[in-house]
């Protein structure tokens, strides 16, 4: 299971990176969103994927319970990611409106 998740995460990071290296702004944006979502999935697995629900009664033992802290963290990260996604998409749209194309190579030169 761990190996499968690790391979899946690797694949997702790789495809995100591949998309980010494109010239098309939309692909770059989608690539960076994939990378940020992948790190969220990675964060969940850091609590250990054990299958048990972390609801404990008094006196019950802690065995086979997934750590709830990473899930709380990931909720925060998802909310932040959501806001950033909304912002970056509207930014891309504004960029398209001003530039009339989304090819990132169309704008270079005096920027640096």
């Amino acid at each position, binding site marked *: 299971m761990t190996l499968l998740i690790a391979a899946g995460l690797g694949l997702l990071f790789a495809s995100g990176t591949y998309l980010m290296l494109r010239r098309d*702004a939309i692909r770059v944006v989608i690539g960076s969103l994939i990378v940020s979502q992948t790190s969220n999935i990675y964060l969940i697995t850091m609590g250990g994927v054990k299958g048990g629900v972390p609801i404990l009664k008094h006196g019950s033992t802690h065995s086979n319970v997934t750590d709830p*802290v*990473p899930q709380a963290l990931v909720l925060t990260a998802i909310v*932040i990611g959501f806001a950033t996604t909304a912002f970056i998409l509207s930014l891309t749209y504004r960029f398209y409106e001003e*530039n009339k194309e989304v090819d990132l190579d169309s*704008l270079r030169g005096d920027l640096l």
Partner: protein
Amino acid sequence: MNNLVLVLITPLLAAVISILLRKTSFKDQTAFTGSIIYTLSVVVLANQVMSKGAVSLQAGGWAAPYGITLVADHLSVLMLSLTALVALATVLYSWGYISDKGKESGYYGFLFFMITGMSGAFITGDLFNLFVMFEIVLMSSYALVAYSGSKESLFISLKYVVLNLIGSSLMLVAIGGLYSVIGTLNMAHMAQILAQGSVNMAPVLGLAAILFCVFAVKSALAPFHFWAPPVYANSPAPASALMSGISKKVGIYAVIRMYITVFSQAKIPETAILFAGKSVTHAIGHLAILMAAVTILLGGISAINRNKLDKMLSYSSIGQVGFIFVPLSIAMISGLQAALTASIAYIVAHAIAKPALFMISGIIKKMTGTSKLKDLGGLKESSLLLSSSFFVLILSLVGIPPLLGFFAKLLSFQAAFNFGNSLVILLLFVGSLSTLLYASKAFIQIFFGEPVEFDCSKVSRKELFSVIILVITLLVVGLQFEPVYQLIGEASKSGINTQTYIETVLGATK
């Protein structure tokens, strides 16, 4: 009520109120009042920490290490005071500088959200909370970069967001990994567990390196510096003042807190091939000093042949971060407290001087309509205050006594001599030389020579006054360096003394 909450709540309230009142005729007064109240709350907190020592607050009453802890020690308070000073000057400057149309789209709100994020980052005691605070700062800076709405600024903002999305993802990876290895995210608790030595150090070292790269992106350390010049040159002048002055320092503060305070406790086992028996911080310090060296040379040399004032200042700001990082990485490698003191002195000098320089660059652009150095000249005719302020600021940047920049350079050279590496001394020397070159080039180009057309009436007194606030602070701090030196020493002591930090957060009994 604990004063720690005040420094978070006041800018947050100011942000919300100034967004609500953005279309009224007293929006500027509201924002300015907000920044004054924020400054007062920082003064109250600073006063408390100075007289009674570091304070901590367990948010929501959840005892550390389970809840989120807010901590203010001398280091945090020093950074907060710098934030308050620059924030006050920036808001006053924006009052005159930003157009009414700009303010109506919620400019002050972004500014205050950024200040909230920065204050939060300086007082948080929790690594994940630090990530959240970083995001708050970034979110507002994205908006400020795209502010003018031109094609270029949208493009640059887009690149900036993508870059920081990668940075944030990496930070999450590092945080998740550290949580899984160490089992806590509370910085003091992390230090405590790492000191016990029961943790597997190999992943800690790798994750600490990833985290360092993230902080290097935030503080624009080479090779992660490339975003800074276009971002600073395209944001409105007060926003770049705040970003280069304080939000860069958030990354540097995070390095001090995480590496000098926390990871210095993590000892690499004796069986390791490299850095056996040394701390993780020591190992990362070697990386840091290389990056700092590249940063100084790259920033300094690129600044010399820039043709625009704001671009030159951006590269200069990159080079100055290198100057901050050289003594900092010496402190990381050797654990010398004097080196950390030098680095903090540099932070103070740069955090006061660079915002003022960006503000002057904004004034010049407004007066003449250009920031190209070859189209400028003879501006000493315009205002004696402006030219003398610029002169004082670049003198501090170059390091002429009795200004603060001189003491910072002196302490850095001292630290480098104690470190005993002649290459580092040579590096600092070459770096200072390049600073002298570009600073004098800019000064002569702008203020002497054939006078160009300029219109002083476009610049209000408020803009000039906010520059003067910063310049006077710089002069006073330089002339009265003794008490400031004490304060900086206290700050570096609280940065380097992990045990006190742990006791502040977790209580003395543990």
